[in-house]
């Protein structure tokens, strides 16, 4: 008997893109095409292209190990999870899993809003493969861990997002699987419950169970996992001790708060202008890769004007972790508007106000241009990166809501209320 819990060899997954035309997705369309083919007409050229969401991924996880999977969005993490939890099939390769296994891609899967918490515990447990008797045995424990005792007979549609997630996680955590997959679970729920989940996970790890943890939360990965892999564009970029992989992820161009070119010969630029450094700092001037969502963020570019006389405009493009362009900012410092710059070193800083960006990873491209005539002199894509966090203290745009919060920006708007008690009474 080996002590391997999961072994993955050469796992790949290909998705077909562009196949989802309305015409292709209808029976009528398929029949028409079939008839045309019978009639001797050649079908229109297929516009299909393929995407390898996962490519030749191999790794091995030992029994009792807590294993981390990290990578930016679109790196193949979820595809890997989907394959391991048998939701979808690999295109090639194989994975062997020893022991009772529990794969769940989202906490609270199988919950029905109209059913009570009690009913949903049974429902969700059954979907995960638990026997009714087993669920009944652990029921009190599950409810106690989730801290929803008073509401257990209330339909979950009345639950707060926190309660919902807590109950969902609790069912999962009490399944006692030999191998547990957890995806970003710790990113939801309030901070206190996150800690409790972490505790439970550490507990699980100590009991000889194997955990696969997929998360953006690097400190959690470093603290909980012994080993990890880093995925990028579907391939394993690095594998090894968790802290090393996390370091690699944070510093190998994926996310770093500064980049400097001490050697002018190596610096990006041309015969008129050269970049020397790009940095991100707090209001107080401290360089860091983590920012409080409520606090301003200073983007800074240091550059040399080698040839005098041009009106240079430094530009920052900011992208979020889904590669969405959040904004483009051109330097509008009144002191240098329409002003030809003499040679010398410049440091330009753009301040992003607090309570504007969303949570998550941001990356910044640094550009240098002249606007009239338009010319792009330098472009350093993804020069630096940083992360915006919401501590959940209640005074950000989030307030006391801790659930998923999509949106490219998350401004804290100014809200006003006009209240007229005499109106709107029941008739």
């Amino acid at each position, binding site marked *: 008997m080996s002590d391997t819990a999961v072994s993955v060899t050469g796992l790949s997954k290909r998705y077909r893109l562009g196949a989802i035309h309305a015409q292709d997705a209808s029976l009528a369309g398929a029949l028409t095409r079939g008839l045309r083919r019978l009639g001797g007409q050649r079908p229109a050229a297929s516009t299909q292209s393929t995407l390898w969401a996962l490519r030749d991924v191999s790794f091995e996880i030992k029994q009792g190990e807590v294993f981390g999977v990290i990578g930016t969005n679109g790196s193949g993490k979820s595809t890997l999870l989907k394959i391991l939890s048998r939701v979808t099939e690999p295109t090639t390769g194989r994975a*062997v899993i020893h022991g009772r296994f529990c794969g769940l891609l989202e906490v609270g899967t199988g919950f029905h809003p109209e059913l009570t918490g009690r009913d949903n515990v049974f429902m969700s447990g059954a979907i995960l493969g638990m026997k009714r008797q087993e669920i009944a045995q652990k029921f009190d424990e599950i409810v106690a861990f989730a801290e929803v005792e008073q509401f257990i007979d209330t339909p979950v549609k009345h639950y707060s997002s926190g309660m919902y997630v807590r109950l969902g996680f609790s069912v999962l955590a009490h399944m006692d699987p*030999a191998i547990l997959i957890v995806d970003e679970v710790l990113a939801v729920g309030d901070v206190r419950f996150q800690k409790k989940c972490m505790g439970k996970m550490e507990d699980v790890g100590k009991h000889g169970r194997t955990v696969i943890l997929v998360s953006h939360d690097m400190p959690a990965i470093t603290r909980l996992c012994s080993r990890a892999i880093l995925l990028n564009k579907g391939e394993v970029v690095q594998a090894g001790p968790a802290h090393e992989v996390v370091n690699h992820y944070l510093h190998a161009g994926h996310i770093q708060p500064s980049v400097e070119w001490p050697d002018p010969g190596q610096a990006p630029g041309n015969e008129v202008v050269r970049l020397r450094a790009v940095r991100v700092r707090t209001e107080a001037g401290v360089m860091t890769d983590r920012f409080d969502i409520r606090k301003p963020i200073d983007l800074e570019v240091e550059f040399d004007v080698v040839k005098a006389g041009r009106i240079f405009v430094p530009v920052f493009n900011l992208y979020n972790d889904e590669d969405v362009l959040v904004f483009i900012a051109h330097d509008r410092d009144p002191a240098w508007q329409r002003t030809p710059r003499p040679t010398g070193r410049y440091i330009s800083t753009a301040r992003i106000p607090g309570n504007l960006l969303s949570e998550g990873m941001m990356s910044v491209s640094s550009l240098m241009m002249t606007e009239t005539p338009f010319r792009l002199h330098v472009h350093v894509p993804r020069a630096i990166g940083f992360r915006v966090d919401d501590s959940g203290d209640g005074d950000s745009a989030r307030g006391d809501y801790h659930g998923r919060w999509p949106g490219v920006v998350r401004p804290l708007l100014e809200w006003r209320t006009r209240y007229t008690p005499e109106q709107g009474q029941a008739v």
Partner: protein
Amino acid sequence: MESAIAQESSPALVIEPRTGYVQVGWRELWAARELLYFLAWRDLKTRYAQTAIGAGWALMQPLLSTLIFTLVFSYLAKVPSDGLPYPLFAFAAILPWTLFARSLERSTLSVVTEGGLIKKVYFPRLIIPIAATFINLVDFAIGLLILIGMMVWYQFVPQWTFIFLPLFVGVALLTALSVSLWLSALNVKYRDVASVVPLMTQLWMFASPVLYPASLVPESLRWYYGLNPMAGVIEGFRWALLGKTAPDWTMVGVSLLVVALLLIGGVMFFRRVERTFADLI
């Protein structure tokens, strides 16, 4: 050590691309029988919890159909009814027909409806159309009570033949399942399958002895008529309950054979394409 025991007791799970013939996976299906129960229970609970008169609506349609058919076919068109009161004759067919049609429609949609689950967690996918078929037994049971009420009204005493009732109910469900296994899987890829089904069931109804007795069909064509499994089911159901004309057993035999073939093919087809469900939904 705990996990070491767990490992010994459960064989390693191998995940790799499947090719060619896929086994039914009876063992896995059997192990998931509680999930079948829970899915059905969830549907019932949510359906009847939201609308206290959920059951009322479920009965409205067959009752109204019976009323209209009685007016049109018996009162106006004078269609024969094997010597039975026409409302009884019609309702005894509409009831199993509704069971079949509802099962077929619901089960065809089931895989796409449960897409959220399919994309998030693994369980034997066959459970989904099976649950969506069998759940309709509840509405059927309520309808059966009404039919019994009608029989009392018409002072109709059931004969020993009623012991065959479960057989024909079972065949009706299996027929629905055998067809919906194909359609539910196809519906994942071709979403307009769902819109074809109501049309199909409507045409199918006229090809089954719901409104008229099978005795109207010429003897020489009976064998072909049996190719429609619902023909045997409707006739059989009526006979089991009202015991007038015994069904043509050759016809029933042909029906059973057709269902068996459709079912085996359906399970194989479903198992073959289920691997793409999560990617397509």
